């Protein structure tokens, strides 16, 4: 590689030189930009606002459940609150956050390109996301929605409220997801730097590629499902409602045919981040590059074959349930392969306990629990008892929050210096990670116990025997919320007060560390050439 690698910080109070943040000024220059970095930052802000809103509803739900009977809201309000928590977190935060914000920012830089393959399409994805978000907001304000984020029929096709508007919002959001995926696939195929073959891509990009395939192939099914649901409500077409001659279980097949692959849209990019952050902060070549890369693709393909495991007790045939259970166990293999390879990457490394690394270690701990409890739910007999209890809630929060959100935060802290040219306060970063880790486990581990003891999910009121566990969980949610407030404070104040970030604060080798922080609009002054893998830290040492 041509350029030198400054590890120490340059002197001066502000990042020097022209970069993508100061190249143009004014709101309009942001709204009309086609720069993937600016679009990534706007996605970041948007999805974090959604995360805040979803988190707010989560705290309300937990507060209502602190004791038996009515606390702060009625049963109808509670049903709306958990619906909004789920729908906002899934459709407005987890699905778009890592691809839209982090991958959008670093993917073109990681392949040495000036931008994604279709920059205008990229901006359009963001506008479609905003449009979808506004429609969802309209549904929430206009009619309210209490169907759960799963919109199961015939409840969703008969109940009052903003179901049609909400499904239209989700329909629109889907196109944002499809276009982003399409853009990344083409970018990875056509715009890689000279010398960068597929096995010189950072593993985050393999994961993003696998994710993009799912986004492009699975999301249209969600769009079709939402259209059919809207058609049933608006025109009385009998598709899902048995009163009109429809089949309610058909809706569940359609819904999970998208929403199970969507689980991998949520987790795969997070797994990619973990591979990169772990390797950089342990300064050790990743162990099992090809195994991790192929396991991402394997998970993407398997994700299309296991949707029926959401429906073991839904009235599908025993034969179907049996086949889906069998296939589901094969999801455990690539997931396990990744965990073992990450562990092996720690072996013989030089582990630095930076904030991104602490989030990564939290991920390993929590995702292991999330993955292992998935085994219980994949077993036909055990799932009969656990289905639709708090055990399931705890399981998917360990995967989605302990997995994806921890990985997102690891990536955010890892690339924050690159994005904004500033370092954050490392001590505050570590404290926030610790609070989130403790708060998360306090909130959710107890829910495994509640669930295996029979506490059903989506319950406004509950038996007295679960009260102390619910109260414990609610207190945990406050610690979790506090951790996020500390993090928000740290990241916001560091935007102006943080130390100026060097080009390569962590000693990474992949291309984003070979350009200034923040990068110039065109990313690189000269097109870089790639002569080594993304984790060859000895090239860094010999360059010094």
């Amino acid at each position, binding site marked *: 590689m041509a350029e030198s690698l400054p590890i120490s910080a340059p002197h001066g109070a502000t990042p020097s030189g022209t970069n993508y943040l100061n190249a143009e000024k004014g709101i309009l220059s942001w709204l009309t930009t086609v720069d993937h970095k600016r679009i990534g930052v706007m996605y970041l802000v948007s999805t974090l606002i959604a995360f805040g809103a979803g988190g707010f509803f989560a705290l309300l739900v937990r507060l209502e459940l602190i004791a038996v*009977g009515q606390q702060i809201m009625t*049963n109808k309000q509670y*049903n709306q609150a958990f619906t909004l928590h789920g729908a906002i977190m899934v459709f407005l935060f987890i699905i778009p956050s890592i691809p839209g914000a982090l991958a959008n920012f670093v993917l073109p830089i990681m392949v040495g390109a000036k931008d994604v393959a279709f920059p205008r399409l990229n901006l359009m994805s963001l506008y479609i996301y905003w449009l979808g978000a506004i429609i969802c907001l309209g549904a929430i304000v206009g009619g309210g929605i209490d169907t759960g984020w799963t919109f*199961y029929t*015939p*409840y969703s096709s*008969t*109940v009052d409220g903003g179901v049609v508007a909400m499904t239209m919002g989700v329909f629109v959001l889907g196109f944002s997801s499809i276009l982003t995926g399409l853009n990344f696939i083409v970018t990875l195929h056509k715009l890689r730097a000279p010398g960068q073959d597929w096995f010189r891509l950072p593993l985050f990009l393999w994961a993003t590629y696998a994710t993009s395939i799912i986004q492009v192939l699975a999301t249209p099914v969600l769009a079709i499902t939402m259209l059919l649901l809207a058609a049933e409500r608006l025109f009385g077409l009998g598709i899902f409602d*048995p009163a009109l001659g429809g089949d*309610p*279980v058909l809706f569940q097949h359609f819904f999970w045919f998208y929403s199970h692959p969507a689980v991998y849209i949520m987790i795969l990019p997070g797994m990619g981040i973990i591979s990169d952050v772990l390797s950089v902060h342990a*300064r050790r*070549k990743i*162990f*099992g590059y*090809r195994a991790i890369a192929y396991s991402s693709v394997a998970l993407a393909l398997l994700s299309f074959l296991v949707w029926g495991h959401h429906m*073991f007790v*839904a009235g599908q045939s025993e034969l179907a349930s*049996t086949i889906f259970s069998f296939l589901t*166990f*094969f999801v455990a*293999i690539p997931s*396990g*392969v990744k965990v*073992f390879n990450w*562990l092996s990457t*720690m*072996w*013989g*490394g*030089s*582990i*630095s*306990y930076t904030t991104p690394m602490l989030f990564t*270690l939290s991920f390993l701990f929590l995702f*292991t629990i999330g993955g*292992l409890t998935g*085994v219980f739910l*994949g*077993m036909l*007999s*055990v799932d*009969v*008892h656990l*289905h*639709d209890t708090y055990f399931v809630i705890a399981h998917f929060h360990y995967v989605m929050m302990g997995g994806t959100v921890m990985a997102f935060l690891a990536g955010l802290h890892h690339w924050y210096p690159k994005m904004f040219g500033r370092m954050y306060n490392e001590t505050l970063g570590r404290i926030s990670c610790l609070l989130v880790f403790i708060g998360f486990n306090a909130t959710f581990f107890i829910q495994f*116990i509640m669930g*295996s*003891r*029979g506490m*059903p*999910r*989506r*319950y*406004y009121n*509950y038996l*007295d*025997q679960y009260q102390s566990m619910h109260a414990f969980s609610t207190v945990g949610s406050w610690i979790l919320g506090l951790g996020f407030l500390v993090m928000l404070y740290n990241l916001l104040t560091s935007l102006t007060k943080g130390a100026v970030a060097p080009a390569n604060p962590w000693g990474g080798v992949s291309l984003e560390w070979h350009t200034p922080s923040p990068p110039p609009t065109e990313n690189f002054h000269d097109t870089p050439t790639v002569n080594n893998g993304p984790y060859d*830290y000895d090239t860094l*040492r010999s360059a010094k």
Partner: protein
Amino acid sequence: MNDKNAVGVDLGTFWLPRQSSTIAAEMDLGWDVAYWLSVFFFVGIVAAMAYFMWRYRRRSENDITSTVDHSLPIEITWTVIPSIMCVGLFLVGFKGYINASIAPAESYEVQVRAQKWSWKFIYPNGTVADELRVPLGKPVRLIMSSTDVLHSFYVPEFRIKADVVPGNYTTVWFEATELGEKQIFCTEYCGDDHSFMLASVIVLEPAKFQEWLQSTEGPPAGVSPVEHGQKLFARNCASCHTVDGTARVGPTLLKVFGKDEKLADGSTVKVDENYLRESILNPNAKVVFGFQPVMSPFKGLLKDHELDALIAYIKELK
């Protein structure tokens, strides 16, 4: 929770409820296998992680790190061994599930009708009850359907659960192994009062069960038809009809008997025993003016002596 249907779930172990059905032990075998395998892997992974975190902490910026980046034998090992374990786990789960799915041929059958937000249990002799009374030690098969949206029938202590789907029948079966009351939950979200959609299974000695079933054949002894009708009214009708003169979802039944009622189609009908009977069994035949045809028919849900009691009670509302 203040609810007569909240009977509670008794615990058997730290993690799981009591085993109160014949299939519970085999279902829990699956739990035990998954649990101990998970403990093994979790402890192993976290112990390795903790050791590496300490052993390979960064000592200086110039630490030399390992460049070993793959090992085929290791990769094969940690792919193949978990694969074999997974097939084993699948088989354990499959075996328990199939045994739990196939009801013995001689099972006693009870129909279950789920609706927002209550359960009705209908016995072969036509008796309709709010609690599920079953004999001890005899397999019982439930044939379930819903009149509105999805519900799910869950008895934690029996380890049984199945969704109840409108326009379709689903079934579960169990054989209770101990006397007493067991909690029934609805576990598929069904709207406002989903969390109040509780009921109980009452396991009785077979002789006591037969006694109870026969006692439902005729009118209850020592209770006048009007008193019996009042109880039936409170259970079946009071959520939509008042007896104090105010209209709710349906018209009030105060002073309704003998009245000339105007109907939605403009005609008029005299409220007599036959009109009341028709309006209970097939309520949408003659809908009162100003009300929607939303009442579900009670045909098949009430016995003749219960209809008689209800009509006797309504006649008394003067």
